[in-house]
């Protein structure tokens, strides 16, 4: 009752004014957010694009002041670490998502698993580093690129699993059921019929998750660490990688040259990930329209 009275007492002019002000505010909010995004991109491009060159891309990193300084080893290390994380994490996470989608509906255990997946998705990434440190680095006695891969795989796992489950649940149950009715086993029906119908979306979702994980720094700080060497001792020694290199060059180094190198590395990683992101979104959208 009180609220209706309140509405009647609000003069029309005031209501329209409030509406206009709020519309302006929300437009300004969007403008601010987009402006900040462009600002970040522009800083990265302005400071980083000039550093890129053949030496930068193909020479290994060296202490400041030496000639032919590059980040080739860190690029290769990042590729090693990310690919291994994908190999460890994605197939198992895909299987888990399939299992949860098929056997885990309306069951208490299924809901518990779903809850834990969501919790793991929101877990601070630095904790994955701490966990792998306690699990692998303490027991084996050395930091390694592989430990870094494992921590990235832990971050990747719940995202891929959730994407797989969501995608499978989007397929109409009739598709699954009719293939079962034709005498297919569950395994065959899921892999050959259900997953085939969503393979585009599934691949997009998984690659987006990989792209997000590839730029993670915090979990690598205690596991892969960082080194000036080429990553040939991936399993036994600290391994060079781009994110931690950026961290080292910006915080632990006073020299301008190192800052510039850091921006160059930041440029590489940002542009690669953004292009990957845009391309995936574009492909996904084309599919939807077709």
């Amino acid at each position, binding site marked *: 009752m009180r609220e209706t009275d309140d509405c009647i007492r609000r003069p029309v002019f005031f*209501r329209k004014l409030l*509406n206009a002000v*709020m*519309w302006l*505010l*929300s*437009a300004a909010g*969007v403008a601010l*957010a987009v402006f*900040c*995004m462009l*600002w*970040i991109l522009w*800083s*990265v491009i302005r400071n980083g694009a000039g550093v890129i060159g053949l030496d930068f891309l193909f020479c290994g990193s060296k202490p400041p002041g030496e000639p032919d300084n590059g980040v080739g080893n860190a690029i290769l290390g990042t590729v090693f670490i990310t690919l291994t994380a994908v190999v460890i994490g994605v197939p*198992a996470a895909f*299987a*888990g998502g*399939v*299992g*949860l989608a098929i*056997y885990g509906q309306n069951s208490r255990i299924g809901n518990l*698993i779903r*809850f*834990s*997946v*969501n*919790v*793991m998705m*929101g*877990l*601070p990434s*630095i*904790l994955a580093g*701490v*966990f792998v440190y*306690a*699990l692998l680095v303490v027991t084996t006695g050395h930091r390694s690129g592989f430990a870094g891969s494992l921590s990235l795989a832990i971050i990747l*796992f719940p995202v891929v699993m959730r994407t797989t489950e969501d995608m499978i649940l989007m397929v109409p149950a009739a598709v699954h059921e009719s293939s079962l009715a034709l005498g297919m*086993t*569950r*395994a065959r029906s899921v892999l050959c019929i259900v997953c085939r119908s969503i393979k585009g979306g599934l691949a997009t979702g998984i690659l987006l998750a990989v792209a*997000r994980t590839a*730029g*993670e*720094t*915090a979990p690598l*700080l205690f596991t892969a660490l960082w080194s000036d060497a080429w990553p040939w001792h991936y399993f036994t020694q600290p391994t060079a990688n781009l*994110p931690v290199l*950026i*961290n080292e060059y*910006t*915080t632990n180094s006073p020299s301008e040259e190192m*800052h510039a190198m850091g*921006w160059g590395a*930041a440029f590489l990683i*940002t542009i690669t*990930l953004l292009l990957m*992101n*845009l391309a995936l979104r574009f492909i996904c959208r084309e599919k939807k329209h077709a």
Partner: protein
Amino acid sequence: MFELFRKKENLRDRAFMILTLLCAFLPLAAAVGFLILLGGNSAEAFRTFGFGFLVSTQWDPVQELYGALPAISGTLLTTVIALGIAAPLGFITALFLVNAPEWLGHPLSQALDLLAAIPSIIYGMWGLFVLAPVMQDYIQPFLADTLRLGKLPFVGEDYNGFGFLTAGLILALMVLPYICAVMRDVFRMTPGPLREAAYGIGCTSWEVASDIVLRYGLRGILGAVFIGLGRALGETMAVLFVIGGIAELPDSLFGSGTTIAATLANNFNEADGLLRSVLFALGLILMLLSLSVQAAAQLYLRNMDRKRGEK
């Protein structure tokens, strides 16, 4: 022979079920494993300091006296600043994006989503080299001197571009895409007839948003805020560069301090013995904080799904 084939297929099906279910249990196992490993490794810290560890403000590596309160309060303060900015901003940006025409709303939504694709270290670097000088030269003098906010308690007149406010701003920008995405879903979820009825009796679009959509989707919006909260709590790299890294209680918005994640990142590699155990204990605290926030988010968002299911 057909029977044999059948048996083989059945066996394969059984193997498929066991394999996929085993994989499905992995996240649960990992969550439990996290708790066990962090708890086990932090036992020494809790034995040494007792539960006074949680409220002690000491951080003295020479005498080996450690307390968690500076890191905990710093974490909470940056998170509160970030959410205080990002939650209302997320609400009004989602409002604009949902109401805008398709040709404008779609690309802008995509642009906002791209904010989430930028790695956190880039935010940190941008904060350190670009935002911190801008804060020092323009924003903080404006807030402290022009608006005279510096006289207020807990704001302070000493500023150097770093500190809680800068960290909070960067965090707000980082969590904005997540909050905005969930809020857009909430807005789209409000039944059309409800909104049209409100327009029909002459409500302005702001009144529809604040009186109808906000109340209808309140739980979803709270869920969005908790999702952002979870992201902001444990963010490391974006905060690390601009927070200052001093283990002291926060005394002003412009002052420096530390967060749990930043403390871990700064000290973990050189730590051993008691300090390492203390850092594990901080990790455990961060894990429990994040767990409770995620649980709250799930509670709110699951009810939202149920509501959606009824529709």
